[in-house]
C-alpha cells in the first residue's frame, strides 16, 4: 500500500515535469510553421529533425553563441571563487568557533533566505547608482576620482551580484559538514605536533571536501541558468549576456522557440555531470540514513 502514498506526487511530476522536458525536446527537434513562424513540435521520436539543434551547436562551437557560453563559464567560475573566499571562513567560524553566539550567528546567516532575491538586488541598484552610497564612499576614501556608473554592463558588478546573491546558499551546506567533523581528530592533529595551519590543511580541509563539493554544485547549477541578476545589475546591457539571457531572449523576446529550446537542451547537456553528481550523493546519504 505504500506506493499509493507516492502516486499523486509521482503522477504530478510525470505530468508537469517529465512531459514538460519532453515538450522542450519535441520543440527543439520539431519544425517551424513557414507562415506563422511558430513552433511545430515533433512528438514522435521517429520524426525528430536535428537540423535546428546542429545549427545552434555550430553557433555554440565557434559562432556568436560560443562567446556567450565562455563568458557564462568565467562569470560562474569567478563567482564560485568569490563564494568560497567569503563563505568558507564564515562557515568555518560558525561551525567550529562561534561558541555561545552560534545560535544568533546562524539566525543571521539564514536571514537572507527570507529576503526576496530581487529585493537584495534592488538594494544594490540603489547603492550603485552614479550618485549612490558606493561611489560616495569610494570618493571619501580616495579610492576613486570621478563617480563611476557601475550599472551599465560591468562584468565586475555582475560577478559581485552573483556572489552576493548565492553565497548564503553556499554557506549552509558547508556549515553542516564542518559542524559534523569530529573535534577529536583536529585535537589529535595538534597533539601530534602539527601547527594550527598544518592541522587545518591536512585534517579539517580534506574532511570538509564533501561539503565543499555539495555547496559548490548547489550554487553553480542555478548560477548557470541565472539571467535576472545580470539583466538587473546592468540595466539590460547585452555586453554581459549569459546563456540564460539568450534563452530568455529567444523564447520571450523574439519568437524563435526552436532556438531557445535547443539552447536549453545544450545547457542541460553541459550541466548533466553536476546534476548527476548531486543526485548520486543525495541518494547515497538517504540510503545511509535509512539503514
Amino acid at each position: 500500500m505504500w506506493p499509493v502514498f507516492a502516486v499523486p506526487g509521482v503522477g504530478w511530476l510525470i505530468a508537469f515535469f517529465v512531459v514538460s522536458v519532453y515538450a522542450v525536446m519535441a520543440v527543439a527537434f520539431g519544425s517551424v510553421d513557414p507562415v506563422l513562424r511558430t513552433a511545430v513540435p515533433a512528438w514522435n521520436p521517429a520524426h525528430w529533425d536535428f537540423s535546428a539543434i546542429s545549427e545552434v551547436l555550430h553557433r555554440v562551437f565557434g559562432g556568436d553563441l560560443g562567446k556567450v557560453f565562455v563568458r557564462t563559464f568565467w562569470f560562474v567560475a569567478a563567482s564560485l571563487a568569490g563564494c568560497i573566499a567569503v563563505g568558507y571562513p564564515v562557515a568555518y567560524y560558525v561551525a567550529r568557533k562561534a561558541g555561545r553566539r552560534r545560535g544568533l550567528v546562524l539566525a543571521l546567516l539564514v536571514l537572507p533566505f527570507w529576503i526576496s532575491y530581487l529585493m537584495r538586488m534592488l538594494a544594490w541598484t540603489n547603492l550603485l547608482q552614479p550618485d549612490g552610497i558606493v561611489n560616495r564612499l569610494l570618493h571619501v576614501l580616495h579610492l576613486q576620482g570621478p563617480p563611476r556608473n557601475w550599472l551599465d554592463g560591468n562584468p565586475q558588478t555582475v560577478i559581485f551580484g552573483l556572489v552576493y546573491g548565492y553565497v548564503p546558499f553556499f554557506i549552509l551546506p558547508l556549515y553542516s559538514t564542518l559542524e559534523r567533523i569530529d573535534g577529536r581528530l583536529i585535537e589529535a592533529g595538534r597533539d601530534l605536533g602539527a601547527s594550527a595551519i598544518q592541522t587545518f590543511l591536512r585534517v579539517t580541509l580534506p574532511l570538509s571536501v564533501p561539503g565543499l563539493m555539495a555547496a559548490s554544485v548547489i550554487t553553480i547549477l542555478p548560477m548557470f541558468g541565472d539571467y535576472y541578476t545580470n539583466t538587473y545589475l546592468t540595466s539590460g546591457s547585452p555586453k554581459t549576456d549569459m546563456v540564460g539571457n539568450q534563452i530568455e531572449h529567444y523564447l520571450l523576446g523574439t519568437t524563435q522557440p526552436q532556438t531557445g529550446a535547443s539552447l536549453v537542451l545544450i545547457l542541460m547537456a553541459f550541466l548533466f555531470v553536476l546534476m548527476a553528481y548531486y543526485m548520486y550523493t543525495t541518494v547515497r546519504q538517504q540510503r545511509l540514513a535509512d539503514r
Partner: protein
Amino acid sequence: MNPFRRRNGRAPVLAMVTWVYILWSILPVLVAVRISFNSGKSRSAFQSMSFRWYWGDKTLSVWHDATLHTAMLNTLQLAALCMLLATPLGVAMAIGLHRWRGKLSNAANGLMLIPIVTPEIVFGVALFLVFTQVYTGVPSGMSRQLIGHITFTMSFVVVIVRGRLAAIGNQYEEAARDLGATRMQAIRLVLLPLLAPAIFASVMVVFATSIDDFVISSFLSTGASTDTVPIKIYSGAKGTSTPALNALASVMLVFTLVAIALAAVAMKRMSRGGGGTDGAARAVGNLASLTG
C-alpha cells in the same frame, strides 16, 4: 595573528570576517527599506522621511497604483495556494517513498530529485512550452503559475520530510500497530505528529520559495494582471522607477518576516507537546489509552 588558534578556542580574525559578512549581507537591504521612506523620487539619495510611496502619492504609491497592489495580492495568493497543495503532496510522497522498496521506488526517488538540480530557467522554458503546446486547456495566468510553483517546490518538501522520517525510524509506528491501531490510525495519530516539525519547516520553505520565485512566474505571466512582486521589481530596473518599488519590496519583507516569526512560535508550541523522543513516547501513550 593566527586565525585558527585553538588553545583558548577563539579566532578573532574569523569572527571579524563573519561579522563583516553579516553586515554586508543585511545592511544593503536596510538601506533599501530606508529609501522606501524617501520623500523625493530618487532611489539613491535620501532626502527626508515620508510615507509618500506607501500611500501619500495619489497615483504612484503602493496603495494607489493598482498594478503594484495587484502584484502583491497575486504573490501572496500564489504562495498560500502553493503551500496548501505542495505540502500534502510532498508529505504523502515522502512517506510512500520511504517505505516502498524496489526498482520502481528508486526510479520515483530519482525523478523526485531531478527538479532540485534543474536550473530554474530550464523549468521556466519547459513549463512555458508545455502549456503553449500540450496543456492548452489550463487557463493562462495564475493557474499555470500555481502548477509551476507546486512542481518546483514539492521536491523540497519530500527531501525535508524524508530526512525526518529516517531520523524517527519505524519503531513508534510499529508500537502503535502492536497496540492495535490500524495502519491509517498509526499514521494519523503517531507518524504525523512526529513529522510536525518537518512539515512546518516544509511549509516555510515552500512559502519563501514561492514568494521569491521570479523565473517561473515570469515565463507563465500573461501581463500586468498576473504579474507578481518579483516581476514588478525586475521590470522596474529597466524603466525609470520610483521608491514605490522599495516600498512594495519592504511590505513583502514585513509579511515574510511576520509569517516566519509566527511559524517559529507555533513550532515551539507544538514541539513542546509533540516533538522529540519525549513527545514521541507521549504520542504512543495517547494512542494506547485511546485504543485500550
